[in-house]
């Protein structure tokens, strides 16, 4: 299975997301913001970072990238898409997910190891978890406060679209402690904390984050998602950066 990881100008956790995809057992394919070709990937991760500096609103500028047009279309056809942190913000700005992410209520960037409860396993990215399973993965953001109208939040609850909630102290003031949501179909998931930073005990607080990546592999194996989504070839192929930098000892 090929998992595409998009690099926008200002993406930071793209290398980590690719590593996590590999740890999970997939092949990681680097996608470039200016290249609308998805290169036959079977799923896409929009990684964390500060795309375009996050200067206006997080994700507001990134959603106009050529690659987003392709992703929006493919997501409509069922391609699994996971947005982590900045990726979550981009998915909301692109209207692939409901709601919006705003400045943390305490107004500070916050990085800590966060306990979450998985609330919904009917998604391409969480089927490997048990219902109500608690996990610990890092949270690190300045604008991770999930907001939506009461009606929206009620409908998310009713439809099982809340994928994970914060347990214990809410790190950013998110409404109803929401840490992750999905679209109605369940192929698109946005999560504020960082599963890609919890894939081994050497560099992360746990290995709980791997579950997101093994989930999508299972979903793929179970053929619940369409095989390699292949859009018509687009001229002017862009350029994918070599971020897995080759500095060998």
């Amino acid at each position, binding site marked *: 299975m090929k998992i595409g990881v998009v690099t926008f100008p200002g993406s930071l956790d793209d290398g980590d997301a690719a590593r996590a995809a590999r740890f999970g057992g997939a092949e990681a394919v680097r996608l470039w913001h200016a290249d609308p070709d998805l290169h036959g990937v079977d799923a896409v991760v929009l990684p964390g970072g500060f795309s375009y500096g996050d200067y206006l609103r997080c994700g507001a500028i990134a959603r106009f990238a050529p690659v987003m047009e392709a992703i929006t279309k493919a997501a409509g056809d069922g391609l699994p898409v996971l947005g982590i942190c900045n990726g979550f913000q981009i998915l909301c700005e692109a209207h692939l997910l409901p709601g919006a992410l705003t400045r943390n209520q305490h107004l500070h*960037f916050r990085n800590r190891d966060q306990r979450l409860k998985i609330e919904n396993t009917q998604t391409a990215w969480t089927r490997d978890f048990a219902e109500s399973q608690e996990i610990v993965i890092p949270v690190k953001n300045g604008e991770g406060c999930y907001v939506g109208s009461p009606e929206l939040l009620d409908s998310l609850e009713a439809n099982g679209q809340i994928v994970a909630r914060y347990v214990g102290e809410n790190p950013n003031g998110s409404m109803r402690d929401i840490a992750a949501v999905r679209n109605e179909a369940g192929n698109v998931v946005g999560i504020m904390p960082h599963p890609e930073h919890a894939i081994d005990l050497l560099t992360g607080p746990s290995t709980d984050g791997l579950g997101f990546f093994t989930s999508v592999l299972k979903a793929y194996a179970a053929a619940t998602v369409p095989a390699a989504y292949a859009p018509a070839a687009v001229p002017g192929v862009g350029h994918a950066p070599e971020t897995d930098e080759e500095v060998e000892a």
Partner: protein
Amino acid sequence: MTSVELDFDTVGHAVQTPDEEQPYAELGLQQDEYQRIRQILGRRPTQSELAMYSIMWSEHCSYKSSKIHLKQFVEKKPASDRMLAGIGENAGVIAITDKLAVTFKVESHNHPSYVEPYQGAATGVGGIVRDILAMGARPLAVMDPLRFGAADHPDTARVLPGVVAGVGGYGNCLGLPNIGGEVVFDPSYQGNPLVNALCVGVLPADRLQRKEADGPGNIVVLMGAKTGRDGIGGVSVLASATFDEGSEQRRPSVQVGDPFTEKLLIESCLELYNSDLIVGVQDLGGAGLTCALTETSASAGTGMDIQLETVPLREPSMTPHEILASESQERMLLVVEPAKLNAVLGIAQLWGVLATPIGVVTAPEPGEAAGRLRITWRGETVVDVPPGSLVDDGPVYARPLKEPNDLPLLQADRAETLPKPATGDDLRATVLRMVGSPNLCDKSWVTEQYDRYVLGNTVLAQPEDAGLIRLDESTGLGVAISLDGNSRYARLDPYAGAQLALAEAYRNVAVTGADPVAVTNCLNFGSPEDPAVMWQFAEAVRGLADGCLELGIPVTGGNVSFYNQTGAAAIHPTPIVGVLGVHQDVTQRVPMGFSNAGDVLFVLGE
């Protein structure tokens, strides 16, 4: 030449008007320094040249008061076959294996951070990251030793949150994990907090970059942000003068950082290095274009012809000397062979970074040892100088030294004479008071504002004694770094104080399981014109150099920050020492917490 019609000063005009009054004193130059400039040029300097000399000969850039002391770091340097670049380069470079090298350095951004805490601290991080980038390295992590006034002072409530948010704002947005630092409160920093920043980076040893502008005919390219009026005079004014009431007018010297542009600059530079597209590279920091143009040409013995009007400006009304003095952030200078220019511009464009050819490298005139830096503005020559005269021929002072008068008194006040807690209850109360004190209490309010996970190679970070970064996933090779400084010890005995900081950083690195191999330092002191401060400085440098010799690890670079004082009151002498160690297998790291029930505890040492 009819330069009378021009609204800027030219070399021709300077020749014709030798007696024109020049504001050298306002620019921080002494009378004899001004005379030396006239001597070097054989005429009065133009306005642009005067600005350039005043910046390059400022304390901050020329190290005029510290040079004679710092040379001990070279003279007493222990033998090391690891050092690929040392003092004199943007940052020291240490070989880790046959193929891999690491570079690290710590610098200060103290005064700007007091004036505008967020931007001052942010641009401090940005500046040190560019130093590391200029060596050819991918920046890997940052650290931030900080000093503030009393924790309960209202001004600390203004400065501290801004500084912390600035360090985090810039580092987080660049995607560099923060793996350690210090937060220390002491009233001596009330009007002069310290914001030091360290960056560490990694490079394949054969990708080491040089700053030399070699090869006459090569193109000089300015890459990154547009040049604006921000930070003009920042180096010479903010960093090289006592900070007092006059500082109100200095406020415009503060710059605003743009970490997003810096991130793009990093990615484009690394791509240029990997594709072997450039001859030389230098970051623009304090002293901006002036420093970059003179250092790159002086170190190569070449000259340059620069067309200053080609520099992309944020404000079209800028004058030549403003452009030369601007400290706009997020810029790098490249030297490029003409045949590779298009490829270079292409990579910049790919990342959406501005890159502009601004001139060419020139050969020395026949019979001359070195080239000249000639800068034109709208066809007129505004600068014509030997670049070495700005970089290497600056003044050097052997400032008077005198032990502070109060030192014997301070030293006589021994800790042994203090009352000790006598009972269990006393002891308990003392422990509680200590753990609740600002200097010992939990620092997570600060460290939680920093991303420690990004890049996925952070093995140890806050609150560990040293940061530990994995360099190689397959072998587990990594580096550990610790920064330490104790200014209260240094106040009592600067020689031993510097050594204690060194020893602490050394131990912190060693206990992770790493082998300490190199030292960097940032020497934060009061005014060098005060003999007592100068004595503290001299003692601290001597102590550090002796300590490094004893431990067998070289000083590879560092930074001096003088004039840290409010009125006549200097800060406690604050040498910050950083030690870098090589860890052969980070999976075997030793964290500071107790690992297993039943483990046996030992105390080593006395």
